[in-house]
């Protein structure tokens, strides 16, 4: 699971929705009912959901790249087998999510086109490079952990197909988290080189990890409507706080130092205090100027181009009919 840090643009209803239908729709959500593909929904709801699910799906396939590059280098059978299975799961999640988004009327091809021509986004964190095995372990453990915080919240949202996809996705996640944690425990309990390798990874990945949950509530776009419609299920700062609550103690328990001297839990408020992440950098990266944006998209674009003849041939009427495998 890689989803998280979804970005929303300014939210304003473009045209008047039928007030009776709207009231009925909102009452259903209020009662905790799920909205299904054929139900009436405001155009804005549809648009924002497509955007969110699509970003999540893209994050899964782009997120498979920085970890996937370590499959061929994973040290030993146990790690190699587990990492292959994990990254395969993530690609499977993308498949599920694209299908969920398709129920709202946008095809997988259109979504992938928008990804490779830069029109739609994916989680910013995958625009950072994995220099060492420890970077890969950081993603498997902590980026997945952060995504789980988001996804557990989103699974309680209002759109049926997305919630069901998330339920299935979340069910696979406990394995990933365990795998990632296990990898980091081995580095922590290992040789000096291994410990340093993870500390360096932590130093590199902490700022993007803080960015992962999206801009601070103080500066992010107001999303009351999306909250009311249960599209967005929690504020960015709440999610970040939950993550810190759960994982800062675990990181420290392993003897690693989080590179933020201000990081501290205020016991009175129950909130974490930290150095404010550099939101200018966040914006720069999301707009295409991160260390790996170009590389990630280039890889995706090349894969699409190299695979075009395969997809065309499968669509060809001359193709010998085969019983589907599953």
């Amino acid at each position, binding site marked *: 699971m890689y989803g998280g840090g979804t970005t929303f643009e300014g939210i304003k209803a473009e045209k008047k929705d039928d007030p009776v239908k709207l009231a009925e729709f909102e009452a259903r959500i209020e009662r905790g009912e799920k909205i299904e593909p054929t139900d009436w929904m405001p155009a804005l709801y549809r648009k924002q959901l497509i955007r969110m699910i699509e970003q999540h799906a893209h994050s899964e396939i782009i997120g498979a790249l920085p970890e996937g590059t370590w499959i061929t280098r994973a040290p030993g059978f146990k790690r190699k087998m587990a990492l292959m299975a994990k990254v395969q799961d993530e*690609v499977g999640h993308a*498949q599920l999510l694209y299908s969920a988004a398709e129920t709202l009327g946008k095809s997988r091809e259109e979504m992938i086109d928008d990804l490779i021509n830069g029109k739609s986004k994916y989680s910013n964190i995958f625009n950072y490079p994995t220099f060492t095995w420890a970077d890969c372990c950081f993603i498997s453990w902590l980026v997945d952990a952060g995504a789980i915080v988001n996804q557990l919240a989103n699974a309680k949202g209002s759109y049926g197909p997305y919630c069901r996809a998330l339920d299935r996705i979340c069910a696979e996640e406990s394995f990933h988290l365990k795998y990632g944690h296990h990898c980091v425990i081995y580095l922590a309990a290992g040789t000096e080189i291994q410990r340093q390798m993870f500390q360096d990874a932590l130093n590199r990945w902490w700022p993007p990890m803080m960015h992962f949950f999206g801009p601070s509530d103080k500066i992010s776009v107001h999303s009351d409507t999306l909250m009311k419609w249960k599209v967005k299920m929690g504020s960015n700062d709440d999610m970040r706080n939950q993550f810190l609550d759960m994982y800062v103690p675990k990181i420290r328990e392993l003897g690693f130092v989080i590179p933020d001297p201000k990081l501290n839990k205020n016991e009175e408020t129950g909130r974490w205090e930290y150095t404010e992440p550099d939101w200018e950098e966040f914006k720069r990266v999301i707009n295409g100027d991160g260390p790996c944006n170009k590389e990630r998209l280039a890889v995706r674009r090349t894969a699409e181009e190299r*695979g075009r003849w*395969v997809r065309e*041939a499968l669509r060809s009427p001359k193709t010998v009919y085969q019983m589907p495998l599953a």
Partner: protein
Amino acid sequence: MSDALKELIYKIADDQFILGHRNSEWTGFGPMLEEDIAFSSMAQDKIGHSFALYTMLRELGEQDPDTVAFTRNANQFHNCIFVELPNGEYDFSLVRHFLFDTAEALRFEMLLNSSYEPLALLAKKIRGELRYHTIHANTFLKKLGSGTEESISRLQKSLDYSLPYAMGMFEPSPYESELISEGIFGGEEKLREQWTKKLRK
């Protein structure tokens, strides 16, 4: 007997291990998500099979699987050259997958009757997985081998390029007669014939 047996297990294990590695390189780069997933499944199976075979070798006195797989140099590997060739484009990967996995399924079918029990048991255990691999290969070969002009000509080119390497899968070992007379393995010659010959039932 032991040298012949070890040589046999090494070559099968190394084939699986190296091709599994190549298959895993498709993760994230496939022509569509479904193929990323399929090649990853097959990679996991192959690497799992190699692990089982290296574990068998461990019991025959060789080093542990991680050491054997991750510390030998190229000249100590017994895989056929076919499996180590780079993935190239999807057409070559698919044709190799088809030619290799057909042979592999037949090889393990022969090993079902091996007098060396651990091999016979493994062959039985992984039958279903190998079957999935050949179904996948056959399905895609038939589809792309009849789809468009481009797909047909790409596959034809890769097929022509692959055949000499594919025949290299059946390179005889110095122990052929021993393996055959001991009932451990029916031999490369027989395997090649079955692979080539049209099925007549």
